[in-house]
């Protein structure tokens, strides 16, 4: 690739991402009539967290000072990014193909489809962020979560958050790629995958709780390390109370997260290219499911 082609690619990538972000935001803010928005982004996550708190309270007979409690609470709160970001990216394929019927026009246009899809996920990330903030705020104010903002390592927090979101978006790209090939039920892909990963990523219990032969799955996925970093950056002492990843320093965890994210990221680009090629071969790009 000579220099001018590279420049063209860069500007195509950037404008695909930028315009897709705009479009994603238009779509998100369209259905967010305030009531719907409140239910979906605030009431739902907060009540889910509240249920968790109640269950925890019953089982531990109100032992909210145990470090396990904020571990669960924060893990659950941040995990909501997993579904929203993956879904934001992959749902764009289904939405454009089946609903707006524009996917083929996107494909004909001089844009980078992966950049376009990632852009479509940005709105999801922003709304998820709002509900994460509100969930944590609700936890601190009403649900016994002890959190001191002055003690938090904000640099670590934002760096980890950024890496994690990119990692989740790349995983969303894999789901988007699969959505190109399987018409049926692909709407549930993100839901299903994030549900399964929930079991293995140590979101609401340390990995040691899993049977030994299942634990490697947890160690292999970057989400595990990401959640740990999110917790540690906010409430450092808490996460260190658990044996699972306690041996790793923050920097080591960050290194593992970056390493795994790069591996997953590169893999997802290849998966996307392969599926994209296959979709073209089989004529699936403008195929609507028509049920």
């Amino acid at each position, binding site marked *: 690739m000579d220099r001018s082609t590279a420049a063209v690619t860069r*500007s*195509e990538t950037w*404008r*695909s991402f930028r*315009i897709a972000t*705009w*479009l994603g935001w*238009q*779509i998100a803010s*369209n259905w967010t009539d305030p009531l719907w928005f409140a239910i979906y982004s605030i009431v739902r996550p907060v009540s889910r967290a509240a249920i968790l708190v109640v269950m925890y309270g019953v089982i531990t007979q109100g032992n909210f000072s145990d470090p396990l409690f904020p571990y669960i609470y924060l893990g659950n709160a941040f995990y909501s990014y997993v579904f929203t970001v993956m879904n934001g990216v992959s749902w764009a394929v289904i939405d454009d193909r089946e609903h*707006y*019927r*524009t996917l*083929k*026009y*996107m*494909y*004909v*246009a*001089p*844009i980078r489809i992966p950049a376009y899809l990632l852009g479509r996920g940005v709105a999801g990330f922003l709304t998820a962020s709002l509900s994460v903030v509100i969930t944590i705020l609700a936890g601190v104010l009403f649900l016994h979560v002890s959190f001191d903002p002055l003690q938090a390592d904000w640099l670590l927090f934002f760096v980890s958050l950024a890496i994690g979101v990119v990692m989740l978006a790349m995983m969303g790209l894999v789901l988007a790629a699969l959505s190109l090939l399987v018409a049926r039920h692909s709407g549930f892909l993100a839901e299903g995958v994030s549900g399964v990963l929930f079991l293995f990523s140590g979101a609401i219990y340390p990995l040691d709780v899993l049977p030994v032969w299942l634990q490697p799955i947890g160690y292999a996925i970057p989400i595990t390390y990401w959640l740990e970093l999110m917790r540690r950056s906010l409430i450092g002492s808490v996460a260190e109370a658990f044996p699972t990843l306690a041996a790793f320093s923050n920097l080591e965890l960050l290194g593992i997260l970056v390493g795994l994210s790069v591996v997953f990221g590169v893999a997802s680009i290849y998966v996307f290219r392969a599926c994209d*090629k296959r979709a*073209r*071969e*089989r*004529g699936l*790009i*403008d195929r609507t499911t028509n049920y």
Partner: protein
Amino acid sequence: MPPLAIETEALGRIYKIRGSKKEKKIRKELVALADVNLQIETGELFGLLGPNGAGKTTLIKILTTLLAPTTGWARVAGHDVVDAAAKVRPLINMVSGGESSGYGLLTVRENLWMFSQFYGVPSKEAYRRIDELLKRVGIFDRRHTKSADLSTGLRQKMNIVRGFMTDPDVLFLDEPTLGLDVGASREVRALIREWVDDRRSDVRRTLLLTTHYMVEADELCDRVAIINQGRVLACDTPSALKQHLQKDAIFEVETSPLNGLTAQTIEDLPEVRTATATEHDGGATLNLILVEENALAHVINVFTQKNVRILKLSKREPTLEDVFVDLVGRSMADVEKGGESSEQ
């Protein structure tokens, strides 16, 4: 000589069709395109004419990089559509008729602006072009309407604007007037012709459209390829296509009920090249292509023997419909009814 705008060689496409649940193992293959060789020059307004299932959309999908061919190759604006798809895309655009695509929550102008941005058109220039084209197709007053609130026809007009707006070197229109009323169809045809003829731009514009309206192909296109069952049967200017039939005599006959007479029995007469018949209440309309005019006497004889009365008889100039019948042996309407093209 300038490079060809579109060039294909031995282009073919086979679809693998999975059977229903019961016969999952049985995989059928459907030949949607076979051995298509086209050379379309820059500046041409080229038409693909063919019945439903002929392979028109399949060809457009290959040329616009949406679909990989199974055999052969194609170049658009000098670039291979498979290996250099990224080079092709900035130079083309595509619109399909008869569907309502677009982001219903955006206004007409927003929809169009967004697509213009994907092509890197500066916003100001984009709005200028959008407004000009919206005026041209008569929906300028609806520019701030959410596209969800537009009728199907108006949405199609919006999409047509989307195609022209990026000022591509090669524009593909798949049945652009499908579903539009007579007036709108006429406007769109005028726009198409004008756009191709516009020499303001330094690059000469090329447009490929598909249609199954004979008149559209005949009156609008510089050259027409007649396509049936995936094969290009003829490719020339409309007048040259019709020229072959010029020395033949073409008659349209309206008769009383045919009393068991069929197009086939008439076609079996020696001087009759082709005959098609459509029966309707109280009679039939026949189209006859005769090798020479005198043969008409024979045909009339056959009618008389069967007690079929002739209600109206007229001689006419050949049309592309006649060319199609001459090539395929059946009218396009018959081919579409025949169900031979295995539409699933």
